[in-house]
């Protein structure tokens, strides 16, 4: 297998650009939708409830898919530096996902489908929206899922092919038979191969689950006499939704391995701890979903105990491997704190702080008081907005900065950081305070103190979006001042190809 090949021209970078640009455009639109809803909860913008919930459905589905698309494109590009991948296949996946996004937009904005992105059975068939919008929404999500599974298959197939099957891709011999492994001159997969393996493997399992659920719901849509067990459907829904959403940040960990190493001018290698950390993450990502069903007392009891334990222990590989490694890269390094480096590093903070909020919510005694309050969007906004989106922005800025003849001024950096992060903190605190005080989530009109808190949150969101707009302008300036003779980053790989 040819492991080193040009990644500098299309289609390598072209695919990543396609995914990143489309993902970020959808993200920007969904941020505006989110701002609209928060302003409505603040009683500053009158929205009819059916439109509010259609927007909520669009915002949830759109944001998850948009960030996943960004992560898929960036990780695909990084894996293609090591392994030859078919660009046409991943473009096909992108087309299917975008068709799905169009379906979701039509179902929500035209059909006013308001069954939410969790579409818990039997709500999609018991709402105030027309039946066709339910069908279009479900078909849209099925298309997204098919595109996702194609990407997962390509990733999984690539790493299994390149590194000697599952045993090689998991670096089993590297961990357990190190001497023989090294004596044979073998090398473990690079760090970014592990997010690809885990996303491919866990993503396929989640995708199969979604296929089963999607087909069941579509059959129910076609024939209303069909009856589905609601507990079964709820388990399948959360297994898919949790796993898919959770995988986004794990895929983006690859950007930390490559991006932070670049920003700190240090090297990041595969180690035994990294490998074992990813083995455990591979398991925990699949095992955690049941914490969404803590308040379903009919769920088998052992699953509740198991979910809490699993949700707790999932923090170990994240903090002990990815976060700790990133901190070691930065510690007393020659890091140039460009916007790219700042966003990447701040994304780690969002991951950890969001994780703290998640661990509190994953504690069953606290979940009794927090389940389906604003604490839930508090923690997942922290790691999706303050984690995933910042990772993507950091990556884009590192790419732009690497080729630009221009440097971001200190004033601009200060403004972007102060407005983006300051606004984000105020916006997120609104969710945390609302959740702690029992304000329910997904309310078009919230009980007190919800509206009061939402007013602060809305102001915070506006400030954050001004900061993001400045960052966008700065990104354009970096792009316009591109130095043609500057070497591309990340560049071609020169090391020996991995065994195939």
């Amino acid at each position, binding site marked *: 297998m040819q492991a080193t090949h040009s990644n500098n021209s299309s289609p390598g970078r072209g695919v990543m650009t396609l995914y990143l640009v489309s993902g970020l455009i959808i993200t920007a639109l969904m941020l505006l939708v989110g701002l609209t809803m928060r302003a409505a909860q603040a009683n500053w913008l009158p929205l009819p409830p059916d439109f509010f919930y259609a927007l909520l459905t669009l915002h949830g589905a759109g944001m998850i898919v948009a960030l996943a698309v960004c992560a898929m494109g960036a990780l695909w590009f990084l894996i293609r530096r090591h392994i030859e991948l078919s660009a046409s296949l991943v473009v096909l996946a992108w087309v299917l996902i975008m068709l799905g996004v169009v379906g979701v937009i039509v179902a929500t904005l035209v059909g006013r489908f308001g069954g939410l992105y969790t579409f*818990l059975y039997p*709500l999609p068939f018991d709402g105030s929206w027309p039946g066709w919008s339910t069908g279009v929404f479900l078909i849209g999500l099925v298309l997204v899922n098919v595109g996702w599974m194609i990407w997962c298959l390509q990733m999984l197939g690539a790493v299994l092919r390149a590194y000697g099957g599952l045993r090689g891709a998991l670096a089993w011999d590297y961990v357990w038979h190190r001497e023989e492994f090294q004596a044979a001159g073998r090398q473990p997969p690079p760090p970014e191969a592990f997010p690809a393996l885990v996303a491919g493997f866990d993503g396929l399992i989640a995708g199969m689950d979604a296929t089963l659920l999607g087909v069941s719901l579509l059959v129910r849509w076609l024939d209303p006499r069909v009856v589905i067990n609601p507990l079964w459907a709820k388990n399948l829904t959360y297994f898919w939704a949790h796993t898919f959403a959770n995988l986004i940040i794990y895929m983006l960990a690859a950007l930390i391995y490559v991006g932070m190493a670049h920003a700190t001018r240090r090297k990041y290698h595969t180690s035994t*701890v990294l490998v074992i950390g990813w083995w455990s993450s591979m398991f925990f990502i699949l095992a955690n979903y049941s914490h969404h069903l803590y308040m379903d007392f009919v769920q088998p009891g052992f699953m509740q105990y198991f979910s*809490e334990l699993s949700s707790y222990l999932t923090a170990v590989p994240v903090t*002990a491997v990815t976060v700790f490694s990133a*901190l070691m890269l930065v510690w007393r390094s020659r890091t140039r704190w460009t916007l790219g480096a700042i966003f990447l590093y701040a994304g780690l903070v969002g991951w950890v702080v969001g994780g*703290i909020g998640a661990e509190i919510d994953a504690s069953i005694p606290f979940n009794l008081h927090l389940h389906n309050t604003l604490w839930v969007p508090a923690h997942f906004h922290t790691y999706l907005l303050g984690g995933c989106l910042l990772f993507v922005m950091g990556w884009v800025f590192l790419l732009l900065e690497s080729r630009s003849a221009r440097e971001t001024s200190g004033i601009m950096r200060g403004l972007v950081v102060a407005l983006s992060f300051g606004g984000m903190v105020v916006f997120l605190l609104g969710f945390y305070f609302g959740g702690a005080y029992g304000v329910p989530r*997904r309310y078009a009109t919230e009980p007190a103190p919800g509206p009061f808190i939402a007013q602060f949150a809305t102001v915070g969101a506006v400030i954050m979006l001004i900061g993001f707009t400045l960052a966008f302008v700065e990104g354009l300036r970096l792009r316009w001042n591109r130095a043609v003779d500057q070497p591309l980053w990340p560049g071609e790989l020169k090391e020996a190809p991995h065994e195939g």
Partner: protein
Amino acid sequence: MDAAEKLLLMFFILAAVAMFVFVTVAWSTRLPEQEQAEVQHRGYAIRGRWFLGITLFLLAAFFATIPFFPYLAAAEALLPAEKVPVIAQQFVFIMPDHFPLNRRILFEVTSRDVNHGFGIYNPEGQLIAQTQAMPDYVNYLAVTFHQPGHYTVRCLEYCGVGHAIMQKDFTVEGASPTPAPMPMSQPSGTNTVPSSNASNPFE
């Protein structure tokens, strides 16, 4: 300090510790550069201790929370209680308006249509207990009201365009008559192990 303040305090303390670590590490880049091998040598030793410490802490936290789980053993489920059926449907709760003080109430919660949430807010507006209301299933939630006053039940699972207005007020009184049993058809697929909200870990 009420439950909300305790939760927020716990979150802010943990978040502040994390922030302190990140800021300190970022600040270290102002110091003279250190060789990566040297950083790794020291870092790996710290990481080993962190791995052990965080694992033990989380395991301890798991065992510490178990007594507060709302999933009761069968023996506890047999404790005397006033059984009260609750039916949720878009967008109302069908249930009594009055409950007695200091008497164990066993809510039998189900739904006639879609998934709903059954969240009880005390007179101060604090969420004190909840369970899901799911069609075809009954969730059992045991609650003892120790405080008289006006309580509110709110739907805590999105159920359609009327979700935000789906609520029910009831009162808890010292000398209240026994609540009248609500007529209710027994749904299929009910669970056999009742559950309770046990004691409130905040109180």
